[in-house]
Structures are given as C-alpha cells and as structure tokens.
C-alpha cells in the first residue's frame, strides 16, 4: 500500500540543538520556506540528555537577543575545579594549568532539554511545523539514488507485525533537502554513512557512554555556578573517562560520568563505575543528605575531525552529532552542533535559490570557527590511548605550548566494537552493592527516566543473528550487553542449565550503546513506535 505523501522545502529529522538551529535559521533566511521537523520523543526535549556547560557562541549568532526572550540560559559559571581522584584521596589541579579548551568562565550551566524546548518555541513562532512523537523510520530514495525524503513509522502494529485496530500507516515526507539531525549514532544516519561511503578515508568513529543524574542537595553543599570535573578513580589508567559535577539553579546538581566505549575489559560495567564513583569521599560529601531526582544515559561522539564523515550527499545533509561535531576535550557539543545547523540552513537556502551544490556545506563548515576548534582539539582523545598520565602530559604540551598546532594528527585505530578482549583473559570486577542512598540499581534508575514503549509492538532492538548472543558472545565475552546497557535491557536468564538471551526492549532509553559496542555488530537499533522511550524533564 502506498503511503500518503507530503512535500516540503526541507525536512529535518530530530529536534535537538542541531536540527532546531537548522529550522530556525532557514525560517530567518526565508520565511516562505516550508520546513517540517520530526522528533521521535513524545515532546521536544524528552530524549535530550547532556551535561551541560553551554558556550553561547552559536546561540549568539542564531538568536542574538536570547537574553531578552526568557531563554533557559541563566546560570553563569562562577568557579571551576579539576580533581584527580585516587581511591580515597583527591588532588586538585590548578585551573591556570588547564588547557584553555577546558576553561568555562564565560559559559552557562544549562539543561539542554529545556534549551531545546525553548528553541522549539522560537521555531514554531517562525512557522516551522514540529511534530513530536513521529520517528523517521526509513529513508526514501529517488531513482537516481539521491535522498528524496523519509517515511514515518507505522503506528499500531503488534509484536508479530500485524495491524492492530489502532493501526495508523506512516507517511512519506519529501523534501528538496532532507537534514538528518538524529544525534549520536542516528539509525538513519548510520545507513546513509554506509550507502554513500561518507566515512571513506576517515578513522573509525569513537564513542562514549555518558550518564547523568540530577540531585537536589542540601544548601550548605551547593555552590550555584560551580563546575567541577574529575579524572582517575574508579577507572584504571587505560580506560578513558571522567566525571562532571555542575551546580545548577534550585539547589540542583547535574552529576555525570562519561566512559569511552573503547574500553577493553568485557567485565567492565559503565553503570557500576558511575555508581561507584559517587562513593568517593570528594563526591559523597556533596550529595550526602540529598536526593536523586533524575537519571539517564546517552552515547556520545568522541572521534573529532579524524572520524568526521563527509557531511553531504545528494539530497541530504548530516548535522550535529549525526555526523560527529562534538568537541570531546572541551566536553561540549551543543555549540558546534548548532553551528553546523546554521551552516546547513545557509547551504539549503543557497541550494534552493541559486541551485548551488550541497558540497558547499562542508566547505563552509571547514571555514567556520567550529571546525577550527575541532582541529585544535584533534590530538587529545587519541593521546589518551597511551594511558592517563602520558595523555595528560601530551595534552599539556599540545594544548598549552602549541595550542593544538602540532604538525601531525594522531589516529583512532579501532572501532569501539573491536576493542573488547576475551572475558577469560580479563579481570572480573567486583562492584560494591547498592546502598539505595548514594548508589542505586538499574531498575530503580530506569524508573526515574519515565521510559515506556506501547505494549505489544515489534521489538526495536533487532538481532542480525538471534543465536549469536548465546552461541558466541556469552562464552567469549560473558555477554557484555548485560553490563554496557545502562538500564538492563539485556539479560541472560538460565533455566535448567540452559541460557537464554532476553531483550526487555520496553526499558530502552534510546542511548544507542548496544548498537555501537556489540562486538559482532549484531544488535541493530531501529525506531520503536512514536512517543516511546524516556520522558526526560530538565536533563
């Protein structure tokens, strides 16, 4: 059955900072353009999770009077700290010795979800049609192979693929240019990168998994505007990662942990590293007596320009972290994502009006400040492949002495799914029990995300080979999906000495970690029914 069709000048897939910036800029350039933005979450912001210390550079360009428009960018960074953690001790690193990319004195502590909600209001005022609850599930191609648009997901299909009474077929949305703004590891972006060989000649993309909790803490421990980062414990020197503690308004702190998904030990549980991190005396004393009010996790891009794919193809553009514009050493990506969206909008406008080729997008991007800062930061993440201490020493030389201008570029050698070593060759990690005060289990954590998927729908985590988890991955890697999934979607259940691989897909918070880290790339994340997934508040 052919689907109903709607046509637009531009269709944008994803309501994060890059997609919304694209939409707003397009309408600013020409208010007559028909722009449609789709979001898989039940509302804009529902699937947004970020630290976030926000640099306003791109927002200043997009909406210069944002301060007058009651934007949720309010809490200025007032103080910074950097701690090296040992098991019991901590060492404060003088901030004057931090590379300038890690200085935040002009930035703001924000909730990116709230910023996106506000950006969506601005976009709607300009006439952008925003549809939350409608995932783009499929790419539609023209006969010449160029991207024609996307199709939205059918609603009301049961777990076996049959139509329910509530069945509502998806639609096809065609556009002069389709913009993919799905964020890190977008499931359509992944297909496009493969089909158009966009990553040809690039290093394998690098990812991390980021956790975030919001805590309401006692007044005496709260210092609004304080930004603190840590490195070291509980991770060993060969695992890339660190924490953030941002003191936001209303006595809240944003507490998080990022671990590079190139970790080698299959016994490592990123979730448990984060929980354990909170028991360090330097952290515990901040949150003690407080209350955890939110939890979430999301994969993020760490590859930088070495792994940045070509961002254009016939009929379509990749923006933000669907391409990979995050600046990892800076621990920021919202500003570069928005900048890529602004440039994409300028490109689309010139493409429509003057028939210019979409390749000008990448030329413009390479001339922008966003690319310059990604270039300067390019060698930091790969240098940590030598271990924490050499990485820090190199970073000091690279950033403080040479300001990112060393005449060589270090490479990312492996994709994250290739880095795991055999389970029997790596040490098991004995994680402490959860105390339900400072540390919590996955079940009570997923509860805080408000995650739900309509019952009786097809499983949206597809196994290419359904037998592989038990026949191979369990034996070889002790099935790491049990540990890398931040909400316990994957379980090994044993009955009568027979192991069974269970997928609790209704708990999925759309972080995409499984799609990235599964050693055989056997798990494919596809869009569930619209509106499913987490319902994050001010994450």
């Amino acid at each position, binding site marked *: 059955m052919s689907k109903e069709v*709607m046509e637009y000048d531009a269709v944008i897939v994803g309501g994060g900072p890059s997609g919304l910036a694209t939409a707003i800029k397009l309408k600013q350039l020409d208010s007559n353009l028909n722009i449609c933005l789709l979001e898989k979450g039940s509302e804009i*912001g529902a699937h947004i999770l970020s630290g976030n210390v926000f640099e306003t550079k791109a927002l200043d360009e997009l909406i210069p009077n944002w301060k007058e428009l009651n934007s949720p960018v309010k809490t200025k960074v007032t103080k910074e700290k950097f701690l090296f953690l040992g098991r019991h001790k901590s060492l404060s690193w003088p901030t004057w010795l931090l590379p300038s990319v890690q200085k935040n004195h002009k930035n703001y502590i924000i909730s990116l979800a709230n910023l996106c909600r506000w950006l969506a209001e601005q976009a709607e005022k300009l006439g952008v049609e925003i549809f939350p609850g409608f995932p783009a599930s499929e790419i539609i191609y023209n006969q010449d192979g160029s991207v024609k648009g996307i199709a939205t997901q059918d609603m*009301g299909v049961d777990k076996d693929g049959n139509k*329910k009474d509530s069945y*509502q077929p998806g639609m096809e949305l065609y556009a002069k240019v389709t913009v993919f703004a799905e964020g890190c590891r977008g499931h359509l972006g992944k297909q496009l990168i493969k089909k158009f060989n966009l990553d040809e000649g690039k290093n394998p993309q690098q990812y991390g998994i980021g956790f975030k909790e919001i805590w*309401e803490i006692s007044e005496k421990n709260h210092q609004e505007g304080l930004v603190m980062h840590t490195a070291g414990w509980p991770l060993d020197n060969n695992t890339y990662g660190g924490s953030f503690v941002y003191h936001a308004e209303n006595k809240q702190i944003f507490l998080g942990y990022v671990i590079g998904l190139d970790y080698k030990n299959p016994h490592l549980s990123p979730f448990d590293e984060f929980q354990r991190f909170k028991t360090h005396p330097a952290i515990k004393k901040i949150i003690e007596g407080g209350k955890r009010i939110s939890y979430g996790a999301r994969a993020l891009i760490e590859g930088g320009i070495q792994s940045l794919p070509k961002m254009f193809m016939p009929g379509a553009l990749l923006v933000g972290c669907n391409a990979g514009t995050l600046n990892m050493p800076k621990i920021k990506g919202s500003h570069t994502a928005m900048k890529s969206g602004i440039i994409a909008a300028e490109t689309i406008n010139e493409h429509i009006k003057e028939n210019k080729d979409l390749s000008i997008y990448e030329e413009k991007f390479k001339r922008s400040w966003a690319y310059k800062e990604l270039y300067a930061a390019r060698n930091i993440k790969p240098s940590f492949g030598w271990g924490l201490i050499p990485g820090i020493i190199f970073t000091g030389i690279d950033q403080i002495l040479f300001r990112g201008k060393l005449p060589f570029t270090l490479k990312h050698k492996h994709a994250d799914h290739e880095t795991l070593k055999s389970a029997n060759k790596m040490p098991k990690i004995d994680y402490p029990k959860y105390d339900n005060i400072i540390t919590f289990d996955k079940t009570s954590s997923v509860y805080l995300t*408000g995650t739900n998927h309509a019952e009786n729908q097809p499983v949206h985590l597809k196994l290419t080979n359904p037998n592989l988890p038990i026949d191979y991955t369990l034996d070889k890697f002790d099935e790491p999906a049990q540990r890398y999934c931040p909400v316990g979607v994957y379980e090994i259940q044993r009955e009568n000495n027979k192991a069974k691989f269970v997928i609790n897909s209704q708990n999925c918070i759309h972080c995409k970690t499984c799609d990235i880290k599964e050693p055989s790339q056997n798990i494919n994340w596809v869009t569930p029914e619209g509106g499913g997934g987490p319902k994050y508040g001010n994450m």
Partner: protein
Amino acid sequence: MKILVAVKRVIDYNVQVRVKEDNSGVVTENIKMSTNPPDDNAVEEAVKIKESGKVKEVIAVTVGEEKAQETVRKALAVGVDRGIHVKSEGILEPLAVSKILQKIVEKEKPDLVFMGKQAIDDDCNQTGQMLAALLNWPQATFASKIVVKDKSLEVTREIDEGLETIEVNIPSVITCDLRLNEPRYASLPNIMKAKKKPLEQINVADLGVDTKPRIEQIKVEEPPKRKSGIKVANVAELVQKLKNEAKVI
C-alpha cells in the same frame, strides 16, 4: 445530536511524580504533560459515535492554563470538530470545574457530556457526578461499553460484582473507563488540519462562576518507602517472624 467531551491536562502517566520540597504540591515545571488517559477514551468514543452517523458534532472542552489547549488540539486531531478552552490559573476543585462545564453546557446545548471516570492527578472522581447533579441530568459512570439507542444509552459498567448494564435517557453525563475502547493515534495530516480547526477561548472570569476553593490543602507528602524484604530459611522462621516481629498472626 451533539456531544461535549471534557478533557484535562495532567502529568503524563509515565512520569514519576515528585513532591515539592516545601510540601506545597508536586513539581510540574519542565515535566511531560498529557491528556488524562480515560479522557482519551471519552474522546475516542464520541468520535466513534459520530462516525456511525448518530451524532452531528463533537466539541472538546478543557479548563486550565494556556498550555491546556494542547489537550483540545489533540482531540481535534483525532476527529473532534471544534474546541473550547476555558482559561484559568491555579488549581480548580471538581465543584468549580463542574460549574464551569455547566455554563458551557448551557451555552452549547449538547445532548451528551462525556469525560474520563477520574483524573489521574487528583483521583477525585467527582466532576462527572457533580455536573450531572447541577444539570439535573441522569448519569452513567465507569462506562466500559456504550450502545446508543433512540432516546437513551445502554451503558455497561464494571462494578465489584461483575458487569452492570443500565439505561440512561438522553441528555445525560457519561464518565468513561479505560476499557471502553482503544484510542486511535493522530496522523500527521490530521494534526496539521487540527491546527486550523476552531478553538474558542473563554476567560473563566467571564462565566460568572465562583471557583473559590472549598478545601484547604495542608500539605502533600510522598508515600512512605517500602522496606526491602528478607529471605527466610524455613516455614518455622517465617511463622516466628510473622508472630513476633510483624505481629500479624
């Protein structure tokens, strides 16, 4: 015939509700809000009856702050013809809402009023009943099946003893159970069309209704946390613990 459906904007049922630190209520800022789930069933049933040809017009009404009109827009996107938004700030008690709805009924003269059996935020389960009393109309609550007859409705209600079937004359007030039907999804084109359907805004002050609260809320607290369980070794230990510690036998 004409049906008026009342819809309420509440905190989404998936969201874990959090009590404000000063115990004055629950946190609603930056939280996903949705239509009260049984109100969706009321909308669905009204639209179904309209599609069967027995009803000419379905009107959706909501009472609340500016953003409450999202619930009316959602109803418009699944087949409701037009909407009314009565603007008001702050918490309204069921009696005040009933009085507001009474005014809307007097103005619109519907033959039937549908709404959810109760709202999932305050769980009052009073508005439909109070409205029926104010209008002096018959009521059927907890409807799990509705059959439209000539001048009456046959309504099946789920009660403790089983299923009760009653007949109510038209006009009447019906409150709907979750089991009544499965609400449909709004399609993209219908959401767009819904943006162009008429939505009238009325200030609550213009209705001349006394909305003053009759109840003083002292404080809101979280329910006590359940203590984690323990495993016992045998039946004897269980009996001993039930007797001496839990003191239930």
